């Protein structure tokens, strides 16, 4: 019964993609779009398969994932530590609030030129761009999450005999966790976008580089194969994050 239900769910989730693929092939067959702009699905899949077994795709993905993870973890760690310090201390909040308000509207990706000057080429400017962009929503959410913890819960904890330190570890941190995690999810989405965009701009390896290379030489099937691979990768990342969220925040209401 359960197995059947799961199968049904998978089929109902895949069905829309099937429809898109059928329309895709139809559009080509009817000659509505030139194959140069949109190669047929089967050709794209063939290319995807080729770069997959040649190891080319995996090589570039590995580099992209490495850059993304390093940038994301540095950014997340720094943002959570700083966010906690700011959220928990009034003087810190007074000091940092104007700075955050001033830097918030600046698109952090515009710092890329600076990073290129400072770090040269290669991984460092790419990683620095991810740190700069992904850390911001995590920082803001950490501060908001900590400040928004219900005052009544803090009072109740003190009344039950908790020390200041216990209130911090047993009330404020778990209370802020759902909001912090929401920030981590936004940060992950931004890191994926930024790593690929920066690789397209300055990389000579990585999935972003592969994309810009395919564009430059008008290798349209390769371009589409890459897009599909990135799409699938993105889905896995967000499914994975949802799993982790359920495990870390088991009390969160199911919607």
């Amino acid at each position, binding site marked *: 019964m359960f197995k059947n239900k799961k199968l049904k769910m998978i089929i109902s989730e895949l069905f829309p993609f099937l429809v898109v693929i059928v329309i895709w092939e139809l559009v080509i067959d009817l000659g509505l779009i030139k194959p140069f702009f949109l190669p047929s699905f089967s050709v794209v899949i063939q290319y995807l398969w080729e770069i997959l077994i040649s190891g080319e795709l995996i090589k570039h993905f590995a580099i992209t994932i490495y850059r993304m993870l390093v940038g994301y973890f540095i950014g997340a760690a720094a943002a959570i530590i700083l966010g906690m310090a700011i959220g928990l201390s009034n003087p810190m909040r007074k000091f940092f609030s104007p700075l955050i308000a001033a830097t918030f509207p600046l698109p952090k990706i515009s710092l890329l030129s600076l990073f290129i000057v400072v770090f040269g080429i290669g991984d460092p400017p790419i990683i620095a761009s991810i740190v700069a962009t992904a850390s911001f929503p995590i920082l803001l959410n950490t501060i908001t999450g900590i400040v928004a913890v*219900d005052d*009544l*819960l803090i*009072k*109740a*904890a*003190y*009344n*039950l*005999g*908790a*020390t200041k330190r*216990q209130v911090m570890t*047993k*009330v404020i941190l*778990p*209370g802020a*966790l759902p909001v912090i995690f929401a920030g981590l999810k936004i940060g992950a989405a931004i890191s994926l976008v930024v790593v690929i965009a920066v690789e397209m701009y300055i990389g000579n390896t990585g999935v972003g580089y592969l994309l810009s290379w395919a564009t430059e030489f008008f290798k349209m099937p390769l371009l589409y194969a890459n897009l599909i691979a990135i799409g699938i990768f993105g889905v896995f990342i967000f499914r994975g994050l949802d799993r982790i969220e359920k495990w870390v*925040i*088991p*009390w969160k*209401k199911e919607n």
Partner: protein
Amino acid sequence: MEILIKNISKTFNQRGMEMCAIKDISFDIHDGEFFTLLGPSGCGKSTLLHIISGMEKPTSGLVEFNGVKKSSGPLNTMVWQGYALFPWRTVRENIVFGCEVRGISKKDRYKKVEDFIELVDLKGFENHYPHELSGGMKQRVALARSLCNDPEILLMDEPLAALDAQTRTLMQIELLRIWSQFKKTVVYVTHSIDEAVLLGDRIAIMTARPGTIKEIVSVDLPRPRTLETMTSTKFHQLADMAWNAIKYELNKKF
């Protein structure tokens, strides 16, 4: 634990104006007594409760605790109208919180928590999270959490006010049953006359702001009190008396 309240006043500073919330209140609460504070909303009864708990400091006056025995727990624990349960902790983990932060060994505290889960009739819900419980169940968890901490005094701040009328009545009877098993001093704040009469040994009726004690009424209804108590003539006489005392205060504000 006997509580002596001596000349308590509390003024707040509100937009640069001195606002007197309660004024020169003095009375005693006996050891093991169920004492209710009844008054119109905004009369400062919650403020007085918070002063008794030590969470707020009075502007003048003092609260003395005439303790004879001292149990292992803190002086008082509070049961809040908003439940104040930790959403990330299960029923069991919520109830055990006080023992946990006071450093009672894991084995002892989890043995103890089972008794309280049984006392408040929540067997089978130990591993539920608060958002999976009804309002009545949430307040039972909050009550168990306070009691599991071995307080000398239980302070209750309109704990049933958020419940619907039927659930509230059932919880009042339930609360009396639980109280009869541990017999600790209870200070119970309410704006419901029926509730004050049904639960309390004595009722302190407060005036509108600035809050003072208008009258202290002894409720000589026999215990155990049940749903039938609420239909007795004596109950209605006491409720009428309380209503007459409070009506004047309400009119002052209305």
